[in-house]
């Protein structure tokens, strides 16, 4: 059976797996952004919290993904087999790029601009929302792009703990020693990653004024 024949024969199944993969990525990214963005804003003024949170996020980043899934399985509530565990792991991987870029973006602004803002009588809140965040946005978005691409990749491995998605085909194909089945998962996953990268890069360029 050629890959093409398998693709045509399992269209619906592949589309469903792609949709489930995408859902997994979107939920994880939404949670990661909801955590990392405010935290990144918070650590601008708090060096201790900054060192702790960037340190923890970096450590998580170094754990191999299959091992992290393994660690999570025996943990109650957030662990076990299935989507919830997968989301917990994916969020961990997505946090560091977003957190680091939010911090770098907010602190990498020309000091003359910030001093002018302060001297013109802007409050700290106004400086954050009208100056720092808009100027940091392209950098923050670059972090979100990196995190998204990582998450799409790692999410294929989540199939190993029963989270579904395109990884299901890859693991099944490996077990069946079938290139066609492996490719049915690998090609859509690669396309998703490339597409996300291109679209987010385009958005990033449009936001870059300076």
């Amino acid at each position: 059976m050629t890959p093409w024949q398998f693709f045509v024969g399992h269209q619906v199944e592949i589309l469903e797996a792609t949709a489930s993969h995408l859902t997994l990525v979107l939920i994880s990214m939404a949670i990661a952004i909801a955590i990392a963005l405010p935290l990144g804003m918070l650590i601008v003024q708090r060096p201790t919290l900054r060192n702790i949170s960037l340190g923890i996020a970096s450590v998580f980043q170094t754990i191999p993904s299959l091992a992290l899934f393994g660690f999570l399985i025996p943990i109650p509530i957030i662990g076990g087999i299935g989507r919830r565990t997968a989301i917990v792991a994916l969020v961990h991987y997505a946090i560091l790029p977003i957190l680091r870029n939010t911090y770098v973006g907010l602190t990498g602004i020309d000091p003359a601009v910030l001093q002018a803002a302060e001297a013109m009588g802007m409050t700290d809140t106004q400086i954050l929302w009208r100056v720092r965040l808009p100027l940091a946005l392209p950098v923050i978005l670059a972090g979100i792009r990196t995190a998204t691409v990582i998450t799409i990749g790692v999410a294929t491995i989540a199939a190993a703990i029963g989270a579904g998605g395109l990884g299901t085909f890859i693991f099944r194909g490996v077990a069946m020693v079938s290139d066609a089945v492996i490719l049915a998962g690998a090609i859509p996953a690669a396309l998703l990653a490339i597409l996300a990268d291109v679209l987010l890069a385009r958005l990033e360029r449009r936001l870059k004024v300076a």
Partner: protein
Amino acid sequence: MNAKAPSLAESTILFHNVTYSVNGNAAHPIIDSIVLGIHAGETLVLLGRSGSGKTTLLKLINRLLLPQSGQVLVQGRATSEWDAIRLRRGIGYVIQEGGLFPHFTVAQNIALVPTLEKWEPARIAKRVEELLSLVGLNPSEFATRHPNELSGGQRQRVGVARALAADPPILLMDEPFGALDPVTRAEIQREFSNLARRLGKTIVFVTHDLREAMLLASRIILLQAGRIVASAKPREFLHIDHPEVKAFATSLDPIPGATA
């Protein structure tokens, strides 16, 4: 030294024995026991080498810094008593390279303080147009540009317009023309000198360029190591017998090879 100035009590800005040091390093204050009255409508130039404390003195006026001892009075009230935001909205501020917001258009940059003060949009638009003309930029051509589409001189003009937007009585300028090429600088200095005369604002201008000080000042204050070492009208300044004045005077020496 202050004999010729109007009485200190009438000053718009008054430094009352002000000392400022960083990280409690009281042995080497950046500003050391300064007594200085700046009266309404004068253009006071703070002249000095790098590290003489002139920028620090400027920042003490709009409360970007607070003194360790002594008081800075602005319009009769100590800066420590002022609400920092209110105080700063009434004081224009221009810095080197303009400090313009790169994500704002020229019009949005100029409109900053009026927008914060919630002026009517029509009034803001009118004011922006007025100010662009005032600083010699064609409103229809420049209003919608971003700072990265301007030359250094144009950016500096926008910086001046932005500082004047809400018509503040006081204008602080920290080496505003320092980063410009010499030809553009000379042009913009001459224009600004005329503008300053027409505006009648209290201007405190920081520079290390004696030529610029002579052109713009109604009074020159020379700072050295955080202290005032000379204070005079431009015409009289060069006659002061002080080593630091002489050092600055030497910097005015004619161009090498240009002697007749």
